[in-house]
């Protein structure tokens, strides 16, 4: 598979061994006025793993993803990605460094077709200038076709051939989530952030999505960080789980360790007063 080989090539570029730290978050604090969304959280994501972030509603999970891909700028703390410490960063710079993402409430380009949406994910890899774009001939056309080929492989992989030319606004929710995953995959990311990829899905759709997540991780070697509320899914998929509650990290470890942690049980079930 071409996607596979290209992704593998991308992986070897950054020179980080499997299992070594890909992303390092140190003492991040983020507040909006008086609301402390994240307080002094540190964690790491290792290359090649599936890292889950869980926690009750409002725990700061999505804020954490927003910090990682540059939507929010934390007041304190340091983030380093691929061994390089980064300063204030815009989302498109994070994208250029290899961080892709899906959204909790699907953020597809609703007026565009499935094909165009996934092609949109290739934007960073297309470079032909305005002149060739105007003519839609020669280099621009070749480039377009080259990327169309990659996009078709992603469409095959996600089994969405039949909706290739359907505007995504007309698709059912489960398929939209799948297209969004495809769009993120088209960026050939080193780190893929999934914000509740299974929210609102039925059992069958969840099983499909879980299979895709595992396939992406094992076949393409993409490191994945995911937020999910379905504990069954999280415990089955994740290599390591971090638990947030009210913006603080309360537990971090393998699924078994986290499940046995009293602080986690208290956060989810409440404590008797």
């Amino acid at each position, binding site marked *: 598979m071409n996607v596979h080989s290209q992704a593998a090539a991308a992986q070897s570029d950054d020179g980080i061994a499997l299992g070594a730290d890909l992303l390092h978050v140190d003492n991040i604090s983020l507040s909006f006025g008086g609301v402390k969304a994240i307080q002094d959280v540190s964690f790491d994501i290792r290359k090649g793993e599936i890292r889950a972030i869980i926690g009750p509603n409002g725990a700061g999970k999505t804020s954490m993803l927003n910090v990682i*891909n540059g*939507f929010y700028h934390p007041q304190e703390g340091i983030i380093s990605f691929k061994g390089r410490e980064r300063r204030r960063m*815009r*989302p*498109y710079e*994070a*994208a*250029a460094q290899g961080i*892709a*993402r899906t*959204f909790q409430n699907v*953020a*597809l*380009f*609703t*007026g*565009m077709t499935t094909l*165009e949406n996934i*092609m*949109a*994910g290739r*934007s*960073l890899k*297309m470079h*032909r200038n*305005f002149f060739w*774009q*105007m*003519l*839609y001939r020669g280099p*621009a*056309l070749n480039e*377009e*076709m080259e990327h*169309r*080929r990659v996009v*078709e492989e992603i469409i095959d992989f996600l089994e969405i051939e039949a909706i290739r030319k359907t505007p995504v606004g007309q698709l059912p929710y489960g398929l939209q989530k799948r297209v969004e995953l495809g*769009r993120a995959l088209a*960026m050939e990311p080193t780190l893929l952030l999934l914000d509740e990829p299974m929210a609102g899905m039925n059992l069958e759709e969840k099983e499909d999505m879980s299979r895709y997540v595992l396939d992406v991780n094992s076949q393409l070697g993409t490191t994945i960080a995911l937020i999910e509320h379905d504990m069954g899914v999280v415990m089955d998929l994740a290599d390591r789980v971090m638990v947030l509650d009210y913006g603080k990290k309360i537990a971090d470890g393998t699924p078994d360790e986290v499940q046995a942690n009293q602080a986690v049980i208290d956060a989810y079930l409440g404590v008797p007063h």
Partner: protein
Amino acid sequence: MLYREAGQFKTSYQADQAAFPIFQDQLAVWAILAVAFIGVPLVGNDFFLNSIMIPFLIFALASVGLNILTGYAGQLSLGTGAFMGVGAYACYKLTTIFPDVNIVIMIVASGFFSAGIGMIFGLPSLRIKGFYLVVTTLAAQFFLEWCFIRIAWLYNYNPSGAIEVPQREAFGVILTGASATPVTRYLLVLSIVVVMTWIAFNIIRGRIGRSWMMIRDMDIAAELMGVKPLNAKLSAFAVSSFYCGVAGAMMVFFWLGAAEVESFDVNHSFLILFMVILGGLGSIKGAFMGAAFIWILPILIRAAPGWIGIEVQAATVEHLNFMLIGGLIIFFLIIEPHGLARLWSIGKQKLRVWPFPY
């Protein structure tokens, strides 16, 4: 029956992404081009060319321009009239400073001035969206109108305050001015419009067009795909204003012959915006349909009583006209809010599957 694509298989992605993937459509496009380039000049009289075809094509080009900005990049603008004015005044200045350069080159060059001004007034779009952006483009409209009146240098200190098109020739043919024939002017306008429409279509289906649509549909996700909002929005303003500028220059040089600030007032901005909305946001053929509907239909209605031999007072016809056009606009927008272009593709789909319902 007529519109079956059975048996037309695509064997390459290139064929699949062609502008007109269906054979019947390709035939239709060549037929339309043949009629426009050969048929119309042969049979059209001066009135038909001067009052219908030339303005229709010019407004269609301006609609394509505004459609790029509003329909594809999602940035509302009411400054179209002023940007057309920038093109017209720039072309006038250019051709009076360099009288020997071919006027067609000057018309295209004037688009760049309009693009530059458009980019400057596009800067607020980086912070504000929607109706608030409309207000800032409206400010551009009034500011530029003020410039067209107050800066006498723009109209070469002409006491009447108007720009008058000088006679320009190329290869022995008179292209502009009072003695240029309607056929020459029509063919020039048509050629420029066809080439620029083709270019617009190419840009839209490529990387740059996608980046505009990404910004329109979901700017947060677009940024995450590596699209810089600054580049996408300003390039949309630049390309859109370029098209409006060329349309404005052609409006004065190939149609009106002379123009004052009133030719570029806010009413024209509205006119073009209505063409875009009625034709269909985010559709190039919609721009042509909208322009045809709003420009040609009133002329037909005005002429209709004469054809069927009824004597109606001119004033009555004019009132009827307003009522009919207004009614039709509402009618079409109610049955299809996405404009005539969508209506057209629904019709095409019905033809494809006829006699079955789906």
